[in-house]
């Protein structure tokens, strides 16, 4: 490793309990020992993180005060949705709004919870995200995190509307590395929906390395939607690690459109019988963007189901990577799992590496997986044109249609509408950019 080392002194806070300080020490040691993964590591074969090391980013500083107008372009849905805003990792109380929450719910910045009720999260923070594939970046996060969001709901509590968490990277401030740390704990039959948005306020090289741990008790339901639209110079690393007890349900969606280089890890363990996970995603890449998703679904109990659909649209020299792992442990009988990854290449120079991976150690299971990489089919294109729709418009329409159905899996309609809008905008600018040699249609 010749790249400049990013300084990572653990940053304990005086108000933090001892076990958090210990977590930070361990994380720093883990990161020092492993450094960032390289392409020699199977889990990172297609994604080269050396540009991040080379950028040698220090901790992002506190930016100047942000105002409502600064974040207005990134808001959507309804004004009454609870909202937490972080700028370069720091909580912004004046831009946040925590009303309309049920009794007994703790929703707010993690640092605040660590200061006044750390016992609530001791069993979760740092206990779930322990997978080797992500350990170096998770370790770095543990050593350096300043804040993040916490959602702790008691048994039976329901938050009806999505909680919008907006992570703003403000590149006007020096430094550039931000490590948000988030915790979600849902008691039995509790229901919560979190939408995480990652956006950039000013262009500049920056790193986001976010880690979210979520613990779902029996019968809980968690909708998690991550929207990544950072600037074209940004590096983005993300890890979601979920543990699901009996009959709980995780519905995860990852929308990735921004950043020069991004890697999103979505991991869940189906630890109790009858647990159900649905993992969906849509990634868009153009220019020289690199967008990588790794998912892992661990079937560790009988009678669990998992459905997964990831779609990618790659233009220019964009490079998409998908690796979906499904593990079925010996005790996970009657597992029902289905995994699909479909990619649409809009240019000759766009590229995809896809690797669905199924490892089954139980004998009574139903599991399928599949992946496709292709260009627009010739026949639907001709059908549209034969009805008078001009070729460029027909291509946009069919590209949109390719991805639209997966967005419908998000439960909140305003979120679906918002992402449909982002996708349409992306397609229109893709059309105007000119995309070099278009791929020949498959006939």
């Amino acid at each position: 490793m010749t790249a400049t080392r990013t300084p990572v002194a653990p940053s304990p806070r005086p108000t933090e309990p001892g076990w958090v300080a210990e977590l930070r020490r361990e994380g720093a040691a883990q990161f020092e020992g492993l450094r960032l993964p390289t392409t020699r590591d199977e889990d990172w074969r297609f994604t080269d993180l050396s540009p991040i090391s080379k950028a040698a980013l220090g901790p992002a500083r506190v930016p100047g005060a942000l105002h409502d107008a600064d974040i207005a372009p990134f808001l959507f849905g309804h004004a009454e949705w609870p909202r937490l805003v972080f700028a370069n990792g720091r909580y912004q109380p004046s831009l946040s709004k925590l009303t309309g929450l049920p009794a007994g719910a703790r929703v707010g910045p993690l640092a605040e919870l660590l200061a006044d009720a750390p016992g609530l999260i001791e069993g979760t923070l740092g206990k779930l995200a322990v997978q080797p594939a992500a350990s170096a970046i998770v370790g770095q996060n543990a050593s350096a995190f300043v804040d993040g969001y916490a959602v702790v709901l008691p048994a039976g509590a329901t938050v009806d509307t999505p909680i919008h968490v907006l992570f703003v990277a403000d590149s006007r401030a020096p430094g550039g590395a931000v490590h948000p740390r988030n915790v979600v704990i849902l008691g039995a039959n509790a229901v919560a929906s979190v939408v995480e948005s990652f956006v950039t306020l000013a262009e500049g090289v920056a790193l986001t390395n976010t880690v979210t741990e979520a613990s779902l008790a029996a019968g809980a339901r968690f909708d998690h939607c991550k929207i990544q639209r950072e600037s074209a110079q940004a590096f983005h690393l993300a890890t979601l690690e979920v543990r699901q007890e009996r009959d709980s349900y995780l519905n995860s969606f990852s929308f990735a459109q921004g950043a020069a280089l991004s890697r999103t890890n979505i991991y869940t363990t189906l630890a109790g019988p009858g647990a159900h996970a649905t993992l969906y995603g849509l990634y868009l890449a153009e220019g020289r963007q690199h967008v990588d998703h790794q998912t892992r679904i661990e079937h560790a109990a009988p009678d669990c189901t998992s459905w997964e659909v990831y779609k990618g649209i790659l233009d220019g020299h964009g490079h998409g990577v998908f690796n979906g792992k499904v593990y079925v442990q010996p005790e996970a009988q009657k597992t029902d799992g289905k995994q699909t990854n479909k990619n649409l290449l809009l240019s000759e120079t766009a590229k995809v590496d896809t690797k669905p991976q199924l490892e089954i150690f139980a004998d009574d299971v139903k599991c399928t997986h599949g992946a496709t990489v292709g260009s627009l089919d010739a026949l639907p294109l001709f059908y549209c044109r034969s009805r008078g729709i001009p070729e460029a418009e027909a291509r946009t329409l069919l590209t949109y249609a390719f991805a639209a159905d997966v967005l419908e899996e998000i439960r909140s309609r305003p979120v679906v509408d918002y992402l449909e809008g982002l996708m349409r905008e992306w397609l229109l600018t893709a059309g105007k950019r000119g995309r070099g040699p278009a791929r020949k249609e498959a006939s």
Partner: protein
Amino acid sequence: MLEIKNLTATAGGTEILRGITLSVKAGEVHAIMGPNGSGKSTLAQVLAGHPAYEVTGGSVIYQGQDLLEMEPEVRAQAGVFLAFQYPVEIPGVTNAYFLRAAYNAKRTAAGLEELDPMDFLDLLEEKLKLVEWGPEIMSRAVNAGFSGGEKKRNEILQMAVLEPSLAILDETDSGLDIDALKIVAEGVNSLRRADSATIVVTHYQRLLNHIVPDFVHVLAGGRIVKSGGKELALELEARGYEWLTEVEGAVA
């Protein structure tokens, strides 16, 4: 309206049309019949500009313009409509959106303002009656999961919205039960105008009981081997195609 002269076309290097000459005037209905593999569907698709076929010779003049020089969308905007033998499924695009995009493309090409979604819905409501459908069909994805009959009806709905000058129906009767056949045929008949023409490509005479042709042409081996009035269709129904293809063989 349409003058086809000595049209030849290939698919994947194989010659399928071997010199078609046909003249269609406004107000007329022409039936193109023939055995499987005779080239009748190819003729329909070549007229619509299907990219799988290469025109190797001859000419097609549509309303005074060189049709073969026009992109498929330009042909459609100029009033050419092909009802597909196998309508294409487009998951993710609703019927309403698709129809409006097609309708507005035609208006834009004619220098007219696009119709907004609300006004377009009013227009659709009228057109839906023609195929005896309710509005729920409009929120379904184009042909996705439609039965064979629904797909054919959807073709006629598109035709009703686009009001073509030259409608080409490619085996529109295949896969239809008698009730659906009647709805489709009545739709086509009610869309006929004095200044429009219809070409009906079919293997069987059945559809021609409902859409009565002025002329019947028999295609075999990529050429028109016989033309006549509507009574020719009945003769074909009774005698089959063999006697004609034998004649063709003798000539060739």
